[in-house]
């Protein structure tokens, strides 16, 4: 009976039942199966309120929504275009840089493609980049900044895995930059191959754009100094970022009206954060029940019988996570999958920080992988193109990202260099 109900719940989840409801239903079934009081699940939800870093998620989300509403994407495009647009593949590199910058603040919730796609797609095609390349680039770039601070995905992983978030932020920088370099090299090759005309470099124009967006580019510096300099905690850094962005957009750029725009921005941020955190709350109850039922231990026994080396385990982990990434979004995957794979990874000697980077790298790729890679559908809606065309367009990028994934997985030093 319980098995049948679980199967029905899985089918309903695949049919579009909100994930938090599906997870809640699963926990209720497990509790009933173990003759446990379902009030236990509420204890787990209430325990969320004791996590000190949790406050950072709604606050960084607010900062991202404020930046988008205040016109930061347009300012950044102008700046990076003046800075890098003269290079072969210049505008494509601009696209990569702006999207990574913006995603690190907005989270990979599709906001990047929605907010920047409309601005960058015409820019790329006007500059004579092939349409397929432009679509692939924008679809892939929607999740590029996931490994840079203050990425929401990193914050969530840190909370779920109980790992120091400062360390995770440090660990993500080199792999994130490496991916940017690989994709920039590809853009450069395409720029040369298709003889894309280059814009003229003008130091006067560059200076003008630097002055216009100085406040935006100072933000990551301000954030990194604050956190790694030990001046503020993660949550305080998030609040300071919101205040900084608010002052920047309302007093300096005057692009955001407190009277008319601030209220809807607050609501948008609450909806985004609420829809992520409720999954976390529900998954915590489910995870606890699964641990009580010794599922991770059974899984460990099963894998230990079949896998003997960490190398084999990492390969298997990559395949599994790519499938997860293609089926689930990053936030739900984090809260559901991490508690199950963390003990396995530790058993094979994988550092939890390194595991976090591997995990996020896989899911970053999963965003663009069929059947349900979220970026494919968002781009499909944004650019009004068929999903199959978008998938074919992202294929070269996916191959490059898989190569990057292998590097990140099998060279832990890329994530853990700062430990030495």
């Amino acid at each position, binding site marked *: 009976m319980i098995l049948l109900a679980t199967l029905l719940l899985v*089918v309903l*989840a*695949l*049919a*579009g*039942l*909100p*994930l*938090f*409801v*599906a997870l*809640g*239903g699963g926990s*209720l079934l497990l509790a009933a199966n173990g003759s446990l009081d*379902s*009030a236990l699940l*509420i204890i787990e*939800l*209430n325990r*969320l*309120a004791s*996590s*000190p870093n*949790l*406050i950072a998620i*709604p*606050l960084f989300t*607010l900062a991202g*929504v404020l930046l988008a509403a205040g016109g930061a994407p347009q300012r950044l495009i102008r700046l990076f275009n003046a800075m890098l647009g003269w290079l072969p593949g210049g505008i494509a590199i601009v696209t990569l840089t702006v999207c990574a910058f913006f995603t690190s603040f907005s989270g990979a919730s599709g906001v990047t493609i929605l907010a920047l796609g409309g601005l960058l797609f015409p820019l790329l095609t006007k500059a004579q980049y092939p349409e397929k390349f432009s679509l692939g680039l924008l679809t892939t770039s929607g999740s590029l900044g996931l490994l840079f601070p203050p990425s929401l995905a990193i914050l969530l992983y840190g909370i779920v895995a109980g790992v120091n978030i400062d360390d995770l932020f440090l660990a993500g920088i080199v792999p994130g930059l490496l991916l940017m370099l690989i994709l920039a090299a590809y853009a450069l090759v395409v720029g040369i191959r298709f003889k894309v005309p280059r814009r003229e470099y003008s130091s006067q124009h560059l200076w003008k754009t630097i002055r216009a967006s100085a406040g935006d580019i100072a933000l990551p510096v301000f954030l990194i100094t604050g956190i790694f300099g030990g001046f*503020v905690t993660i*949550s*305080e850094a*998030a*609040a*300071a970022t*919101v*205040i900084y962005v608010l002052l920047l957009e309302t007093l300096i750029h005057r692009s955001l009206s407190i009277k*008319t*725009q601030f*209220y*809807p921005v*607050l*609501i*948008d941020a*609450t*909806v*985004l*954060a*609420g*829809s*992520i*955190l*409720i*999954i976390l709350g529900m998954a915590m109850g489910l995870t606890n029940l699964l641990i009580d039922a010794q599922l991770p231990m059974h899984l460990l026994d099963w894998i230990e019988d079949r896998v003997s080396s960490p190398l084999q385990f990492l390969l298997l982990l990559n395949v599994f996570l790519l499938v997860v990434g293609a*089926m*689930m979004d990053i*936030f*739900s995957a984090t809260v559901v999958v991490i508690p199950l794979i963390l003990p396995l990874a530790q058993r094979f000697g994988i550092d939890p920080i390194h595991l976090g980077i591997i995990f996020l790298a896989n899911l970053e790729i999963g965003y663009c992988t069929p*059947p*349900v890679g979220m970026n494919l559908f968002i781009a499909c809606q944004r650019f009004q193109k068929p999903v199959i065309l978008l998938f074919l367009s992202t294929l070269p990028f996916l191959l490059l990202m898989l190569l990057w994934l292998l590097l990140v997985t099998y060279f832990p030093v890329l994530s853990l260099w700062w430990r030495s």
Partner: protein
Amino acid sequence: MLSYLITFRNGLISIENLLAAASLLLILLLVALQIFSRNLFDIGLPNIDTLSRQLVLFIIFFGSMLAIERRQHITIDIICSLCPASRRPLFRFLNLVAVGICTIFTFSAMRFWKDAWQYASPSEHWQVLIGLIIPAGFMLLSLHFFLSVILGPDRITYKMTAP
């Protein structure tokens, strides 16, 4: 009858919008106050951390209620992505399942809250009172899903998106 329900739903959403925005703003102000008091006056304000963490529960519930109306909840949704025609017929049924699950959680949360109130020391009663958001939140989530069952997929979804 339906028009009354739509008016009721819109009124409910307006109140929830207000409470959602107020909760987020309050968290921001409390954390900012803590930074200033610690760095300028070298004192940490007691209970501010606890209060701001409790307020995250308000964000979770009000954000989720509004996400139902905006259809912005995270879903896996493979079946409907591959077969968009199945979306409409399934809408009411999925919302009905959600009503059932959220209602069970409402009763569980009420039991949890009663116990928490009973065993809390008088100095912790304020935290337990704030924790009322958990049963109330689940009840309101059930209500939103129930309204979606009644009103169906074609009714106008209340939306407010930042310009």
